[in-house]
């Protein structure tokens, strides 16, 4: 509780004690009612003076018809009618409700904010051999910072010394630690678990990953969902309407009764009107809807799913068409040797041996993938006369044999015939002493989670899945088959992708949305053209963070289904709260207007609904179990 809340609590307790004492006095001692009513004004002012003051200021500034106004009219009305004890009670309950709301909302806010607590407080800079602790803001690019076990990495940089396991959970929701050592890039916001690291910073704090993410999260609650906007607009019209209804309730029935020659029962109808006013406070709605959305966004954030605004939750929840970029999204975007096909006379492993040795000086991704598949460090002394044949491959002498490693054109130059592989991928043919030795296939692998990801999306109601890729048809179709995606369009240039997305937008059923999922590289136009753009594997990619509406911090495509689930649950909870709060209000308004319930019930209904709605809203934070999938 903060100071203001503590002060309010003391006021409430004091006023409660006085009220109880006065009720007891009135019960046991023959004090005249006039005197009692006068005495009740003391706790009334203690507990309600700020409400009265705010109502007065509101009227002066033309801001009538808010909660304070409602409460003031209701309680002052009760006092005029001589129902001072009731008036104090109503004010007391109102303040208890306000206090609860303020404490509960403050707490929820902090809980949700803590989910995204990645801001580093300090950085330890090494200067002339001495360590100095400074604000991360003040560290220039190229400084050497030291991060001890247990500390957050404050700025993006490259490790110059040390090994460590990093906990990236706050950024990615991934609980598996990441091993890093000298030469690796590290991202701010990760927590160093094990070893001491010396890092050379490559970005200023403002430009570091942690700042970008924080900015995104802080701005997320500013792009308000339609449901959320509806509630704030609703409150603006609701209160004046209710006030007019209350006025009508106080005036119209007595007049009709008088005309019909009955007793007008003015006092009874005025009390009903005041009860009506007490019930009508819209706080349950106004507080719980934004809280629901904030909770959903916070909960998603803790799973490594950054959502740029509550409006995107609404769009995502009705995604019916999901379009994927292939490389880096459904596939790993890393080349691997997928097949080793030795020609007759050559053993398995021999191809890799020759290829890895011949290619050992090359830095091409395909060469690297071959060396990785070989698994050992190729021996330098066995290799000589390495000659790179630009764009085609390598000639070298390995163990005294003339080795050719490269594509078909390279083989053709030496008049060597090749076998054509059936599987998709890049072909690397090998010849040893002018004899064809076989081929290696190097391809990008489909992510293990991709198939499961598509299944889960179907379960969430995504009816149509499409791959759009610049790759060749064979590779694209195999990827579609392996992942279970319905349609595939290959050999597309970036502008073709935009055209395809526009066509799909035209074809999608009404009331559904189209999401595009890409890895943020070259996808900007499509990401912005789709109803909702989802960027994957965004850790460290500024472009993706800027252009997408939803950013998945790690590479796991299953998170898309999880994000949809969270979006649905959040919307469901928001709707529950609207229906529940409005339903109870309308019921009690009717009961109040008919005179079936008094002010006590009215205030219970108001505070109770609010408490339940706030508790319900908090469920959004726990929208799903902690693992990334289920």
């Amino acid at each position: 509780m903060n100071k203001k809340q503590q002060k309010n609590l003391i006021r409430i307790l004091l006023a409660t004690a006085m009220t109880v004492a006065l009720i007891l006095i009135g019960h046991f001692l023959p004090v005249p009612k006039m005197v009692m009513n006068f005495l009740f004004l003391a706790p009334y002012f203690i507990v309600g003076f700020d409400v009265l003051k705010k109502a007065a200021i509101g009227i002066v500034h033309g801001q009538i018809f808010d909660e304070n106004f409602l409460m003031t009219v209701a309680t002052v009305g009760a006092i005029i009618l001589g129902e001072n004890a009731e008036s104090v009670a109503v004010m007391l309950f109102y303040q208890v409700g306000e206090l609860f709301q303020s404490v509960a909302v403050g707490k929820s806010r902090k809980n949700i904010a803590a989910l995204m607590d990645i801001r580093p407080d300090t950085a330890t800079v090494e200067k002339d051999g001495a360590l100095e602790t400074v604000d991360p803001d003040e560290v220039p690019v190229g400084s050497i910072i030291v991060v001890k076990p247990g500390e957050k990495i404050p700025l993006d940089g490259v490790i110059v010394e040390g090994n460590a396991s990093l906990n990236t959970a706050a950024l990615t929701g991934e609980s598996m630690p990441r091993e890093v050592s000298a030469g690796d890039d590290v991202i701010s916001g990760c927590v160093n678990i094990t070893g001491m690291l010396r890092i050379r910073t490559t970005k200023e704090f403002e430009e570091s990953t942690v700042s970008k993410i924080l900015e995104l999260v802080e701005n997320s609650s500013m792009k308000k969902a339609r449901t959320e906007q509806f509630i704030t607009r609703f409150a603006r019209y609701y209160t004046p309407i209710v006030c007019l209804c209350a006025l009508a309730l106080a005036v119209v029935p007595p007049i009709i009764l008088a005309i019909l020659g009955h007793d007008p029962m003015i006092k009874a109808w005025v009390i009903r009107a005041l009860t009506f006013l007490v019930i009508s406070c819209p706080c349950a709605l106004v507080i719980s809807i934004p809280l629901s959305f904030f909770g959903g966004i916070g909960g998603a954030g803790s799973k490594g799913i950054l959502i740029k605004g509550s409006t995107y939750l609404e769009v995502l929840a009705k995604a019916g068409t999901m379009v994927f970029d292939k490389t880096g999204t459904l596939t790993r975007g890393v080349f691997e040797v997928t097949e080793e096909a030795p020609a007759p006379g050559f053993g398995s492993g021999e191809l890799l041996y020759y290829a890895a040795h011949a290619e050992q000086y090359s830095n091409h991704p395909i060469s690297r993938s071959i060396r990785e598949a070989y698994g050992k460090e190729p021996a330098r002394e066995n290799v000589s006369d390495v000659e790179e044949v630009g764009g085609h491959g390598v000639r070298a002498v390995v163990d005294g044999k003339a080795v050719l490693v490269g594509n078909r054109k390279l083989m053709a130059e030496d008049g060597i015939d090749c076998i054509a592989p059936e599987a998709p991928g890049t072909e690397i043919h090998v010849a040893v002493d002018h004899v064809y030795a076989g081929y290696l296939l190097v391809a990008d692998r489909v992510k293990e989670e991709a198939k499961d990801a598509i299944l889960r999306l179907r379960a969430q109601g995504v009816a149509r899945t499409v791959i759009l890729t610049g790759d060749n048809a064979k590779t694209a179709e195999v990827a579609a088959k392996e992942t279970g995606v319905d349609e595939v369009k290959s050999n597309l240039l970036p502008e073709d992708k935009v055209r395809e997305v526009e066509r799909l937008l035209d074809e999608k059923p009404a009331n559904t949305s189209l999401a595009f999922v890409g890895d943020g590289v070259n996808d900007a136009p499509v990401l912005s053209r789709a109803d909702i753009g989802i960027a994957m594997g965004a850790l460290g990619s500024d472009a993706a963070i800027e252009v997408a509406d939803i950013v998945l911090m790690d590479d796991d495509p299953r998170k898309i289904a999880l994000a949809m689930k969270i979006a649905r649950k959040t919307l469901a909870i928001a709707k529950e709260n609207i229906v529940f709060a409005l339903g109870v209000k309308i019921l009690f308004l009717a009961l109040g207007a008919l005179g079936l319930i008094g002010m006590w019930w009215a205030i219970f209904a108001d505070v109770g609904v609010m408490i339940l709605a706030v508790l319900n809203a908090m469920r959004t934070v726990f929208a799903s179990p902690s693992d990334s999938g289920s």
Partner: protein
Amino acid sequence: MKKTYGIEVDCAACAQKMEDAANKVNGVAQATVSFMTQKIKVEFAEGADPAAVMPDVVKACKRVESDCEIVLE
């Protein structure tokens, strides 16, 4: 030019009122209040000086919501 300031406000409806009020201040191109993060983000109009505009924003907000606070630095 955009700047974000911390605020203290008790209820979501009051935050909305502050937003509406801030948006009417001269020199403010767009203001957005987030009740949940307790922040106001102000985009200033071309050539407007934040130091000159913000006191007016505070005043406008105080008019509609007497016990709100905006932390200027």
